């Protein structure tokens, strides 16, 4: 590049830079205010996006842990809940069923007597078993 060309280039650079800087300084107040607002919004966004220390997140962590524990408990209760199988009836349920049959039948008086006899028999058998060693 010749000296003359370099000088012309430098002149162009200098002049355009000065003009640009001048136009920057003439930016109106409304635009300046909007730029300031945009800057503040950006700084707030940076603050929100910043990763926080664990102790700053403690309330959130505690709530999250509570929710997680409740969910685990709920799932475990659901998975281990007793399942009612058809045909398999527990002892208590059978006793109630017997009483229902006795009460619901047509000759209920006979059935009640039969049940009473059974009870008498079991009482006697129990007593006899208690006396057996002395015999």
């Amino acid at each position: 590049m010749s000296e003359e060309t370099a000088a012309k280039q430098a002149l162009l650079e200098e002049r355009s830079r000065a003009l640009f800087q001048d136009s920057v300084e003439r930016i109106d107040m409304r635009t300046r205010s909007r730029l300031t607002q945009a800057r503040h919004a950006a700084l707030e966004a940076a603050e929100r996006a910043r990763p926080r220390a664990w102790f700053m997140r403690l309330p959130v962590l505690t709530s999250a842990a509570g929710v997680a524990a409740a969910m685990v408990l709920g799932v475990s209760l659901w998975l281990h809940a007793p399942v009612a199988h058809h045909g398999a009836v527990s002892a208590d349920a059978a006793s109630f069923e017997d009483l229902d049959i006795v009460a619901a039948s047509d000759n209920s008086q006979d059935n009640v007597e039969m049940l009473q006899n059974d009870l008498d028999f079991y009482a006697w058998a129990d007593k006899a078993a208690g006396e057996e060693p002395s015999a």
Partner: protein
Amino acid sequence: MSGFGTLTAAWMVADGPAPATRGVVLEQTRALDKFLAEIERRAFRMAQVALRDPDDAMDAVQDAMLKLARNYATRPSAEWRPLFYRILENGIRDLQRRRTVRKRFMTWLPGPKEDPDHEAQDPLDSVADNAPAVPDVLMQHQAMQKLEASLRELPARQREAFMLRNFEGLDVAETAMAMGCSEGSVKTHYSRAVHTLREQLGEVW
């Protein structure tokens, strides 16, 4: 409050939330504020030169500020300037692309054709200003308009290289980082831009 909660609260009051970290965060926020305040007007004017529309320029600058603050605030401050201009140039390109699509779409629509770039003129703008025009200011304003028009006619990469190097004062390496290209490409784009501008603006400008 549970025992654990009381203990935690007492510990936080006694120790405070890690003062060193807080100090670093405050310092970083102040540095970012200072950086953005320093470049915001130049960035706005550069976006305005490229986009013409001041509202679009404002959107581009605001978006660049937000993205820089959200994603790169923790990066070393020396990297902020090229990163900011890279985001800004990408935003400008996106807006220009959207405008092109909008223009094409508008040509397909029936009815009177309206240039979406054409700003709604404020009637007050056409009212003659009675204040005496200061010749120097007027001449500078005209010269700047001429420069802006010439810059808009440049290919986008040449315009970017010229504005980043000459207006923003980035060095070749920073410009290359901002433009996402090699330093050699920056030199080529810049040299071509200067050559074209000299031809367009003439010797007297």
